[in-house]
C-alpha cells in the first residue's frame, strides 16, 4: 500500500513538475563547492565561494520560477590532491552530488577533473589557474570558468614586455599551478622578444622569500615574475619592498594577484602593481550591485574573481540543467557549451569545445593611496582585453576534444 502511494506521488510529481523531473537523479540537483576553507586560499575562495553558489541558486530560482530542487554543499580540500580526490569520490559515489564547483589549487583541480570524467559527472572549475584544464588535460566533463594561466600571461606578461620589461627572473611556486603559470608566461615573454635569465622553484607555501629575492636581485633581470598566489604572493611582494628590490630598478610582476591580496598588502606596498583579472567589483552598475549584496553577507569583504566565477558558473549550470532536462554530467556539459552565457558579472560569453569559458579580461593598475576612496577601491582599469583575445585560441589548443 505504502509503495503504491509513493509511486502515485512520484507519478503526480512528474505530471506537475513536467517531464524534466524524471531525468533529474534523485529529484535533486546537488552542487558541491570544494575548496580551501581554512588555509592560504580561503579568502580568495573558501566560505565566500559557498555563499556565491547559494546566491546563484537563490537568484536563479527567483528569476525563472524554476521548480528544480537544488541543494548546495561545501567541503575543505586543504589544498591537498589526495584529500580533494577522496571528497570528490565520496560526493559523486554516495552523496549524490551532480556537479563540483570552484576547486582552487591546480593540483587538486586536475585531480577532480579526472574523477568527474571517470564518473560521468561534471566539474566546473573557477578556482584553479592551470591552462591545462582546457588544454592537454581537458575532458568532456570539465569546464574551466573564471581565468587561467594563459590568460594571465597574455594580460600581465605581454603588457610588461611591451613596456620594456624584457629580461625576466621567475619565483615559481613548486607545484602544478606555478609550473603552468611560469611556462605560459615564459612563452609570452619569448614571443614578444624578451628573455628569461633565471628561475627558482619555491616550496609551497613559503613564509620567507628573502633568499629567493636575493637570487632574483643578483640575476639583474629587469622583471621579477611572481608565479605564485595568495599568501606566497603577498609575502614576496612585501619582502621585495623590504629588500629595496624596486628601488634598485627591478620591477615585480604579480602574475596572479587577487583583490583580497591587495587588501591584505595595503596600497602603500601594492601601489603601481599591474595585474590581470576577469572580474572586479567596481566595473559597472551590475557588478557593483551584486558585490554589495555579497559583501553584506560576507562580513564586508568584497568578492574575488574566483567567487564571482562560482556565482556565474552555477547560474549557467542551472540554466543548462533546465534546458537539457537532465543532470547527467556529460549531457549538461554539452548543453553548457551549446547555450550562450550571460550574467551580470562577466557579461555575455560562451563555453568553447575545449571547455574554456570565454569572456573579456582586464589589465588593472593598483591605485596609489591618495587615489583610493577607501577599502576595496584599489584598481584603475589600464586596458580591456576583448573576449576573443583574452584566452588561448583554439588553434593552439592541445585539447583532444578540439577537432583540427
Amino acid at each position, binding site marked *: 500500500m505504502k509503495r503504491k502511494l509513493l509511486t502515485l506521488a512520484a507519478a503526480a510529481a512528474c505530471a506537475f513538475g513536467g517531464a524534466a523531473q524524471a531525468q533529474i537523479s534523485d529529484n535533486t540537483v546537488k552542487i558541491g563547492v570544494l575548496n580551501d576553507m*581554512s*588555509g*592560504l*586560499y*580561503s*579568502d*580568495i575562495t*573558501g566560505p565566500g565561494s559557498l555563499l556565491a553558489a547559494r546566491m546563484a541558486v537563490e537568484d536563479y530560482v527567483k528569476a525563472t520560477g524554476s521548480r528544480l530542487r537544488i541543494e548546495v554543499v561545501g567541503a575543505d580540500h586543504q589544498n591537498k590532491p589526495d584529500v580533494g580526490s577522496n571528497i570528490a569520490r565520496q560526493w559523486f559515489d554516495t552523496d549524490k552530488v551532480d556537479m563540483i564547483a570552484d576547486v582552487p589549487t591546480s593540483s587538486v583541480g586536475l585531480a577532480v577533473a579526472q574523477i568527474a570524467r571517470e564518473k560521468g559527472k561534471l566539474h566546473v572549475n573557477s578556482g584553479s589557474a592551470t591552462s591545462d584544464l582546457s588544454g592537454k588535460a581537458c575532458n568532456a566533463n570539465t569546464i574551466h570558468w573564471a581565468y587561467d594561466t594563459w590568460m594571465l600571461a597574455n594580460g600581465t606578461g605581454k603588457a610588461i614586455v611591451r613596456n620594456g620589461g624584457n629580461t625576466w627572473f621567475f619565483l615559481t611556486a*613548486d607545484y602544478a599551478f606555478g609550473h603552468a603559470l611560469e611556462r605560459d608566461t615564459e612563452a609570452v615573454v619569448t614571443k614578444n622578444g624578451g628573455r628569461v635569465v633565471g628561475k*627558482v*622553484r*619555491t*616550496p609551497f*607555501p*613559503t*613564509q*620567507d622569500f*628573502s*633568499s*629567493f629575492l*636575493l*637570487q632574483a*636581485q*643578483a640575476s639583474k633581470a629587469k622583471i621579477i615574475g611572481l608565479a605564485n598566489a*595568495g*599568501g606566497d604572493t*603577498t*609575502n614576496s611582494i*612585501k*619582502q621585495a619592498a*623590504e*629588500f*629595496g628590490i624596486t628601488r*634598485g630598478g627591478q620591477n615585480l610582476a604579480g602574475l596572479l594577484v587577487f583583490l*583580497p*591580496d591587495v*587588501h*591584505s*598588502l*595595503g596600497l*602603500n*606596498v601594492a601601489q603601481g602593481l599591474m595585474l590581470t583579472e576577469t572580474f572586479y567589483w567596481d566595473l559597472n552598475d551590475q557588478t557593483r550591485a551584486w558585490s554589495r549584496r555579497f559583501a553584506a553577507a560576507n562580513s564586508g*569583504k568584497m568578492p574575488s574573481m574566483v567567487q564571482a566565477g562560482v556565482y556565474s558558473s552555477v547560474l549557467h549550470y542551472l540554466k543548462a540543467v533546465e534546458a537539457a532536462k537532465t543532470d547527467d554530467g556529460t549531457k549538461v556539459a554539452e548543453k553548457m557549451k551549446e547555450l550562450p552565457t550571460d550574467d551580470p558579472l562577466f557579461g555575455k560569453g560562451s563555453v568553447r569545445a575545449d571547455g574554456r569559458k570565454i569572456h573579456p579580461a582586464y589589465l588593472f593598475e593598483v591605485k596609489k593611496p591618495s587615489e583610493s576612496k577607501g577599502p576595496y577601491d584599489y584598481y584603475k582599469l589600464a586596458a580591456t582585453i576583448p573576449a576573443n583575445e583574452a584566452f588561448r585560441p583554439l588553434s593552439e589548443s592541445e585539447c583532444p576534444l578540439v577537432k583540427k
Partner: protein
Amino acid sequence: MEIFGIPSQALFGQLLIGLINGSFYALLSLGLAVIFGLLNIINFTHGAQYMLGAFVAYLGLQHLGMNYWVALVVTPIVVGATGVLIERTMLKQLYKLDHLYGLLLTFGLALIIQGLFRHEFGSSGMPYPVPEVFKGAINTGFMFLPKYRAWVIVASLVVCLATWYVIERTKLGAYLRAATENPSLVQSFGINVPRMITLTYGFGVGLAALAGVMAAPIYQVNPTMGADLIIVVFAVVVIGGMGSIMGAIVTGFGLGLIEGLTKVFYPEASSTVIFVIMAIVLLIKPAGLFGTQK
C-alpha cells in the same frame, strides 16, 4: 671569487638571511625548551601564542595607537598572562600524567585559537609597518640588508643569551632547575614551587609572543603564521635535544643557516631539509645534539 658556482658575495648574503630566519627559530625553540625542560610539557600552543603576539601588536596599533616599542614590552606580558591562565586552569591538572596529555591539550588549544582568529580575520593576513627608525637598509657591500632584519638578529641573540644566563648561571635559575629535579625537596626549603612553574610557563609563552611581535613587520600578520612555523621549530628542539636551553639556541641559528644554503643550492628541498637532519640526528644521537639521556 666563486664557491660551488655561486659568487661569494651572494653566498654571504644568503648566510646572513639564514641567520635572520635562525633568530626566529632560536627564539621560539628557546621558549619551547624552557617549558619542556622545567614543566615537562610539550607546548603545542607555542605557534598559536607566537601568532597571538603578532595580533596583539597589530590590534594595539590599529585600535590604541600602540607603537612597535610599546608592543615589544606590552605584548609578551599580555600573552604571557593568558599563558598563566592556561597553566593555572588546565595544564596544572596534567603534570602527573603522561606527556601525551599535555601535548593533546595544547594542540587542541592551538587549533581553537587559530580557528577563532581565522574566523574573525580571514586567512590573507594584515599588514604591519616596519617601525620608522628601521625603515630602509644598509648596503653592506655584499648585500642590501634591511635595518629591521639586522635588529631582529641582535635582539634575538640578546634575549636568547640573557635567558640562558638566567637559567644556567643565577640563583633563580638554580631554584628552577632544582624544582624540576625534585619539587618536594625544593618546596621544603620554603620556595613556592607551583607559582614558580606558573611563571615559567608564562615566561616561555611571553618569548613566543615576543617573536610574534618581531615577525609582524616582516611577514603578514596571519592566523596561520604560527602553524606553519611550529613544526619546524619542534624539529629544531628535537635536534638540539629536548629541554636543552643552549641546544635550542645553537640549533636554531645553525638550522637557519643550513636552510638558507639549501635555498641557494637546491631550493625545492628547503622546506624538508630540517626534517632530514632531524631524522639523521635521531638515528645517531636519539637524545639530540645537546641533550642528555635520562
